């Protein structure tokens, strides 16, 4: 009876995409809870914070400081996923309890807090980090204390840690498909690369440049501005001077707002596609700040858009809105963050244990048919196979999906010939 109620609840909260197999498993987990509770020592041989009823995980994002803008969505998504998993009976019959820590947009704080989560709280997994810098700061700690981090952001690649599952795309997945598409569909010949001045835009532009040059096309300019820069008139003039077919923009944070507003004010109308603008850094989250009318007509290449038309995503968006209000928007990273707890749950259940080493061994090959983005699969290199989509920014702040790669893109964090 209770079980039926629970299942009914699930439908109410809108998780219709959950496969039958999973529901079955959940039911099994609930019914046989006592079996698992008897076996607490078996599923946890390394002293993690796992009791007969609960398993503790960590959430580590910035809720204060400059990065709180971006990381809020990820926290919400991770909490939602945990809530849904708990409603289905948890993981191996145990409810997930989370400890949330604030990285405060400060990399050493991230390191400190990750250490606290691993050493003090003995969490079974950590969902968190956003910027590359914060990930780099915590990485040695995860490797030293053998923790498991689910990292949601699309990033520059060049990394493959046994202690991290990268649920966002690495650079080549995002970049190659986007450039191929503008070349093929829009006949682009010349590119202007623009970015904020740090490692992700620089590495991404490096890959983009190599790819563009391999295709025999031309990069007419490459430019970087400090994080937080708000005056882009000079670079806009340079763009007007060099007349590229495509502006390839990887501007992040508050600079985005300034850049798109000034672009529009300078008379470069994006819907005219002269030049066309392709970005890999603006999700629906950022458009909230930029304003749909300022970025209307730009294209973005990433793996998820809120407007994706599939049953999984509809259920996800519905559940997300039910939880956080109707005005909420969901960006690529938010969705990737949502995958984290689910991937972890799947790996734990496949391994039949919370032990980090067993979870790691079980992770490659894990499939998620219920992912809002469609279907994902964990690669040997701990990144996800995923499709890349091209979205056209609309005035209402949403993207219209105009293209989707046929095949899943293979993650390749150390791309040969692009370094």
């Amino acid at each position: 009876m209770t079980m039926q109620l629970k299942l009914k609840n699930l439908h109410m909260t809108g998780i219709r995409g959950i496969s039958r197999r999973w529901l079955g498993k959940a039911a099994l987990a609930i019914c046989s809870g006592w079996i698992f509770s008897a076996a607490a020592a078996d599923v946890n041989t390394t002293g993690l914070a796992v009791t007969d009823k609960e398993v503790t995980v960590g959430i580590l994002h910035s809720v204060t400081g400059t990065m709180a803008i971006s990381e809020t969505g990820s926290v919400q998504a991770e909490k939602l996923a945990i809530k849904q998993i708990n409603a289905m009976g948890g993981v191996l019959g145990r409810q997930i309890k989370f400890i949330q820590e604030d990285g405060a947009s400060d990399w050493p704080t991230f390191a400190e807090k990750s250490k606290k989560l691993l050493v003090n709280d003995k969490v079974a997994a950590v969902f968190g980090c956003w910027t590359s810098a914060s990930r780099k700061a915590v990485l040695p700690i995860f490797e030293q204390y053998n923790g498991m981090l689910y990292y949601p952001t699309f990033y520059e690649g060049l990394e493959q840690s046994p202690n991290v599952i990268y649920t966002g795309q690495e650079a080549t997945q995002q970049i190659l498909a986007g450039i191929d598409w503008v070349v093929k569909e829009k006949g682009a010949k010349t590119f202007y690369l623009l970015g904020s001045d740090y490692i992700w835009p620089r590495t991404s532009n490096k890959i983009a440049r190599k790819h563009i040059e391999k295709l025999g096309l031309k990069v007419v300019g490459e430019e970087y501005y400090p994080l937080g820069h708000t005056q882009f008139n000079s670079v806009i003039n340079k763009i007007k001077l060099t007349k590229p077919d495509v502006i390839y923009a990887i501007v992040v944070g508050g600079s985005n707002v300034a850049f798109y507003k000034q672009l529009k004010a300078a008379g470069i109308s994006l819907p005219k596609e002269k030049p066309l603008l392709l970005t890999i850094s603006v999700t629906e989250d950022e458009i909230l700040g930029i304003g749909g009318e300022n970025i209307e007509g730009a294209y973005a290449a990433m793996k998820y858009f809120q407007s994706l038309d599939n049953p999984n995503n509809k259920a996800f968006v519905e559940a997300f809105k039910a939880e956080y209000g109707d005005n909420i928007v969901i960006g690529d990273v938010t969705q990737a963050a949502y995958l984290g707890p689910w991937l972890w749950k799947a790996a734990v259940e496949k391994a039949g244990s919370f032990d980090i080493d067993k979870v790691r061994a079980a992770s490659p090959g894990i499939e998620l048919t219920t992912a809002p983005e469609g279907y994902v699969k964990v690669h040997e290199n701990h990144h996800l196979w995923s499709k890349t989509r091209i979205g056209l920014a609309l005035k209402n702040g949403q993207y219209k999906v105009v293209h989707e790669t046929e095949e899943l893109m293979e993650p390749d964090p150390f791309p040969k010939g692009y370094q």
Partner: protein
Amino acid sequence: MSMPNQSSMENSALVENPLSQHGLKALFPKHDIIYLAILAVFLGILLPMTLDIFRLNLVGKYLTYAFVAVGLVLCWGYGGILSLGQGVFFGLGGYCMAMFLKLEASDPESTKIQSTPGIPDFMDWNQITELPWFWEPFYSLPFALIAILVVPTIFAYIIAVAMFKRRVGGVYFAIITQAIASILTILIIGQQGYTGGVNGITDLRTLLGWDIRTDSAKYILYYVNFILLMLCLLAAQFVRKSKLGRLLVAMRGREDRVRFSGYDVSSFKIFVFCLGAAFSAIGGAMFTLQVGFMSPSFVGIVPSIEMVIFCAVGGRLSIFGAVYGTLLVNWAKTTFSESFPELWLFAMGALFIGVVMAFPNGLAGIYKSHIEPLFSRKPKMFEKKPSTPKPASAPEPVSAEPPSIPGSISAMGK
């Protein structure tokens, strides 16, 4: 911004307690010896005994900021020079240490997947194919250790000479040091091929083959840190008790009078600023060793100002207070942000305002005016001008010198 009523107050203070009355006192009057001993027991015995290694490592990290705070007590509390760029020196010291450790971590064996093995990973990501010339010397530990002290000090010297010789001080100095912090941050982030950019220099493992990440290494590093801090406190105490310390206080009150007395004011300021920079640099290097990486987030304005608040909470005139203040603020930060991350900024903001308004001399001031009299057998004559905590009646941060130096001179006349 002249303040006649203020200066008349100062005049009377100077007349009552002319500087010349004091010769060189013993380095440690009785009180200070006790304070130092208490601090040594607290940090060296009590904390290591009661805390597990994770918490102790945190304390070790906080204590690296205490180096900066002690330096600030000398510069700001005594010299009246408020630097908002101490993070620059902390960062430079930390980067010098990190460069050495990174080179050691980047031996050709462990970096063989790179296109150019043997150079730090971030250089490889930025298509740099050989080690830049200024990295070369950092293969040598002695060079790195010397650089930790010398590079920031020279940098501080250049800034200080340029500023103090032209009698730039106070507010202008604060703003210019802030600008320098901002320039250096942009530069470090922008030149990521050489500096690691916004990520900083990460994944540092060993020091001459000794793994700095193990628990035993953390204990040892904690004690190294502790001993260095004690040495810095001794050095600071020496400066404080020497003629230089009293001249600094005099300059803070009335710079022109000191100058008229024939002293070269600027060279004292330059010295104390360089000393503060050197302290910060040691802190930075110890930070790198204990935390295992260095990033530009320490060089910027925000951490630099936070370090000032550590000093202000402890008491800008007390070198011991600065250590306690650093520990207290950071402990509060960690605790708050573990339970109420959103409240932390309110608490921090309130701390800034509260300290400035109500307790200009911080913890040390409260201690001096409220606790010390309880078990001090000294006559009341030294409590002539206690710093009252009421804002309206405390127009100036009345200097809370240890009772043995009754030179109460109002701070910051301009």
